[in-house]
């Protein structure tokens, strides 16, 4: 049992922190204001190897573990949660299912350029009638000769429009429900594949969220990911691991908000003294610190399980970590705004953005309610 980060972890964290503070920090407010996708930062992340942290070297990654991945997303999100989710969705939701379920050919063709960051990835599962209930997926795939023909619309797709490679799910046999769902790899610019509306969001406004529209989109049969009818498993496994990314994003938001509040509390003078002298604020800051510490430990535990066990074992730990971290992020960001008082409600300080950014972590990649179902089914299974 050891709580120390390794030398590699420390060097990674210091590097990503310096990169985030120096390169992502200065424009974060501006990008949020104008909903501007961080394309330049994406390229810099690719150069640093942040686009494939936890994939093996032979597939273009850095060959690091899940703790490294978590620290990466945390440090990026501490400064800019939109950049954090851009990297997380790319890595966890597109590169990872290809790594876990792809054939060797698919890994060479898609995983390698994804991990090196030459290409960006996205994942299309959600539809207007299929959110938590993925069995209601209406997008269809029909096999015709050596092609699959895809029709339907996916919504709320992170990295949509900007991504080059999309892992999507479609229904091949409606009578089978979840067992008819199948996963495919679709490249941008495939005829019949276009983008619908861009969402205007409350938070993570500089991350891209688009509709994917498939109209008789024909993809080669070799772009089937996993088995026909195996798409539900692909999606659920992908989300089990993906929750580590979102949990880490939430920790990053919480840490960023806490640090801003701590600094402000020491500087802001009322009644002739820094407001950090008042016990009411000390208790708030202490609670923030404790909650972040607890949530981060849960996230690192989930990373450990991801590195050492299978996804079935991981599932409840990842769900619990994501729920805890996202709820902590919301509570901490809310209290940070409270410590800033009126200033916290303005866009002059970053806590306003952090509070908006935090909310989505309780919703995407499985709502907190779904996470509780996952945890409950684990503890009640016998």
């Amino acid at each position, binding site marked *: 049992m050891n709580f120390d980060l390794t030398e*590699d972890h420390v*060097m*990674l964290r*210091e*590097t990503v922190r310096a990169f985030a503070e120096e390169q992502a920090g200065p424009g974060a407010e501006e990008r949020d204001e104008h909903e501007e996708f961080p394309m330049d930062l994406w390229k810099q992340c690719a150069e*640093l*190897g942040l686009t*494939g942290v936890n994939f093996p070297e032979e597939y273009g990654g*850095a*060959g690091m573990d899940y703790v490294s991945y978590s620290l990466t997303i945390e440090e990026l999100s501490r400064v800019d949660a939109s950049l954090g989710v851009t990297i997380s969705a790319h890595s966890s939701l597109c590169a990872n299912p290809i790594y876990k379920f792809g054939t060797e050919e698919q890994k060479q063709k898609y995983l390698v350029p994804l991990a090196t960051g030459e290409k960006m990835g996205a994942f299309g599962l959600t539809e207007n009638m299929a959110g938590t209930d993925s069995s209601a997926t209406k997008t269809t795939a029909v096999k015709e000769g050596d092609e699959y023909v895809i029709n339907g619309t996916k919504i709320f797709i992170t990295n949509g429009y900007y991504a080059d490679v999309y892992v999507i799910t479609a229904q091949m046999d409606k009578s089978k429900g979840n067992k008819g769902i199948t996963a495919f790899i679709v490249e941008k610019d495939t005829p019949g594949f276009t983008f619908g509306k861009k969402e205007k969001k409350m938070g993570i406004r500089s991350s891209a969220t688009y509709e994917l529209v498939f109209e008789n989109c024909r993809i080669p049969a070799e772009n089937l990911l996993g088995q026909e009818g195996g798409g539900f498993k692909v999606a659920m496994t992908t989300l089990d691991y993906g929750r580590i990314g979102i949990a880490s994003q939430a920790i990053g938001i919480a840490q960023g908000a806490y640090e801003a509040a701590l600094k402000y509390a020491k500087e802001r003078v009322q009644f002739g003294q820094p407001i950090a002298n008042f016990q009411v604020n000390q208790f708030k800051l202490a609670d923030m610190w404790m909650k972040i510490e607890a949530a981060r430990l849960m996230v690192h535990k989930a990373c450990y399980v991801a590195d050492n066990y299978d996804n079935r074992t991981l599932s409840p730990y990842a769900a619990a970590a994501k729920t805890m971290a996202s709820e902590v992020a919301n509570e901490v960001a809310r209290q940070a705004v409270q410590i800033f008082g009126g200033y916290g409600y303005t866009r002059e300080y970053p806590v306003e953005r952090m509070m908006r950014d935090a909310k989505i972590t309780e919703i995407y990649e499985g709502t907190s309610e779904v996470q509780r179902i996952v945890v409950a089914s684990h503890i009640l299974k016998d």
Partner: protein
Amino acid sequence: MNIVVTLKQTFDTEANIVLKDGKIDATGVNMVMNPYDEFAVEEALKLREKDGGEVVIVCMGGADSEKAVRTALAMGADRAVLINDPALDASDEWVRAEVLAKAIKDIPFDLLLAGRIAVDDQSSQVAVRVAEVLGMPSVTSILKLDVDGGKATVTREIDGGTETIEVPLPAMLTAQKGLNEPRYPTMPGIMKAKKKEMKTVTLADLGLNAADFAPKMTAPVYSLPEARKAGVVIAGEEPIDAVKKLVKLLHEEAKVV
């Protein structure tokens, strides 16, 4: 071209300096590569990318200096020598220069690079003394470097401007802020650094005798700068009197007007 970069691990520049029993207390302080040495490492890597060769890091320090050395390896340096000997704990600039020079002699090199100053003791002595021991020229505070065959053309900072100097190689050049923008270590670089050679050597390994290197200089006292005094508020007076009092204080106490 083969390049040796000497580097030092120092306190993070944001660290809070605390004295304990008259000595600087390093407990809990984040240690980093001396920021000026980062410029030297970056310049060496750029030259290697252009002309090939090898970049070797030479560092003197305790085992904890491995962190700074690993960072240089993760940035892309090829290998490193860490001189770690308890006899060097209280070394002065003379000792450090003599020992570093001895270690460097065993490495084939065309150019030596270092930071112009270490942010901790700020002596700016060791690099130029190394050049002196090795009998080669040194140019300090360089802002621009062009290497062509056996000579280097460097632009260095002088009071109120710059000067351009040509110097034959091998030579020791020390890096000033502005020479370049140091790269971040990449994630694959961090992983590769673990497999690179980091040779730890003692004085005996270098063929040196600790008894010959008793420091000539010691630092018996360290002190912190005086704490900033609270400001003075001139209250309850007519504006004209308050201004008079303020000017008097600025003149006699603060001595700024």
